[in-house]
């Protein structure tokens, strides 16, 4: 079973990423549960979301404390929130940033693999807004390989209608550009 934690800010579509990822996995016949950090969040407040994906029924309903992957949608959260908390040593930390490994290590304490992608840049270009949820989905799918990239297409189309194509393009760019920096 793969456990993922997302970090975003309220109103930036973190919950949507969580849902789309779960929907893509379910569409492939897998089992997935996607849930936000439950509660009341104002716009801009740090929020977290979670996904579990497995090939068999997921029975566990408690919170995720030791994710395999952490995705950070908003660079400003790094340093503000301990984004690497509980992340498994053999896991992956994916950050939306253009910072170098050196700069990131100043604010993140994580010895495992770190990957970055300029999701904000891609989102500005493809979508015209700095909302990085669909962009980061592409990067996540590339890194984990747990869900096929094509499986994102239907959920994105259903959710975004007219602007689905742009979102899918953003996801594709991130899929191609994401790289490990260590």
């Amino acid at each position: 079973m793969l456990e993922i934690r997302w970090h975003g800010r309220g109103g930036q579509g973190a919950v949507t990423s969580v849902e789309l990822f779960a929907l893509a996995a379910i569409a492939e016949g897998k089992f997935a549960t996607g849930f936000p950090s439950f509660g009341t969040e104002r716009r801009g407040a740090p929020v977290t979301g979670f996904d579990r994906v497995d090939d068999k029924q997921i029975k566990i309903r408690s919170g995720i404390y030791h994710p395999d992957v952490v995705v950070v949608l908003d660079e400003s959260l790094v340093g503000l929130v301990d984004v690497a908390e509980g992340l498994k040593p053999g896991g992956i930390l994916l950050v939306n940033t253009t910072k170098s490994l050196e700069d990131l290590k100043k604010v993140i304490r994580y010895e495992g693999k770190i990957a970055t992608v300029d999701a904000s840049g891609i989102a500005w270009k493809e979508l015209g807004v700095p909302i990085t949820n669909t962009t980061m989905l592409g990067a996540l799918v590339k890194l984990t390989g747990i869900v096929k990239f094509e499986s994102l297409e239907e959920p994105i189309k259903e959710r975004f209608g007219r602007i689905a194509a742009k979102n899918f393009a953003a996801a594709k760019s991130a899929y191609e550009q994401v790289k490990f920096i260590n």
Partner: protein
Amino acid sequence: MGKRVGMEVAIASAEAAALCKFDVASVYPITPQSHVAEHLSDIVADGRVDASFITVESEHSALSSAMGASATGARVVTATSSQGLLFMSEVMPITSAMRLPIVMIIANRAVSGPINIWNDHSDIMPMRDTGWISFFADNGQEVVDMVIQAFKVGEDRRVMLPVNVNMDGFQLTHVVEPIIMPDQEEVDKFLPPYKPFAALHPDNCVSMGTLGMPEFFTEAQKSKNVALVNSIKVVREVWKEWETQFGRKYEPIQSYRTEDAEVALVTMGSMGETAEIAVDELRMQGVKAGLLKIKLWRPFPFDDLKKAIKGIKVLAVTDRACSFGGPGGPVFSEIRSALYDVPKKPKVVNYLIGLGGRDVQVENFMDMVRRAAKGKLSEPYEFYGVRG
């Protein structure tokens, strides 16, 4: 055949009601039920069901107008949580007394105070005595199935009682998970249109909601209690029919690995699935652990309980609510009472867990079983994991 989809459970519950072609939805939103209210409203606005949505100003009005609609012979759905349920509580016993088969979807949430919007069972527990049938769902699939089953059970002429379907707020309502949504044809086959026993109409003469003088009140209450107690037969029938048609089995108490269990956990609601993992882990470590998951809370499944506990030495009953100043958690005290006259019965202990959305983890369940097995409890019940 049904379609496997990924769906948020709250949305799925509204979709299940839509499959039942409700006539009236009378709902007031409250976190974490709000997606149910919103989606029911969307369903009606989009004309997907030929129904009316009554935009009431409070939960008290929601249930009152739901009752009025049901009294005219409409199939009615409503939904609420926590304070909303308490606000409509004065109408709850009237609904069952008037034998109106309304279906209520409850997103279980802690009752204030302090103010808490997260999941526990303190909202439904005060409703124990109101004469409603109560189902508890473990996951999204069960929520959908139970909503549909609820209409069938409640509307059966041998029952004619309102039914509430309980799903854990946030823990279930806000989770996207795989659910097999039945087809409209399948549901139409399972659930026929509602034929009320009596309905208010200018052409029919009937008085409903009448006065009950002391000379008749006891008899009226016995009549209602008998209906509720006997409804378990109909619940079993409906669940058997569901299994035949849809292939998914439901029992008032579902046993998990209890064949040779010495210590068994008892749960209600979604934490039961986490408990299954704990039982598996314990078994791998050689502990003879088992689990009883209660799905039918009212009418209380006395016979199923007595069968399920055979051979078990210790029952660790978990409650997500406290009966303050009383004997402990509600499920615990009802189980103890139900087993009082049973000669060979297990020791019954109680852990209050998951209050106000406190996370319930596999390790917690494992710890409970180990301690229960050692008889390590200083009082009959404890607030599990309380600091201090």
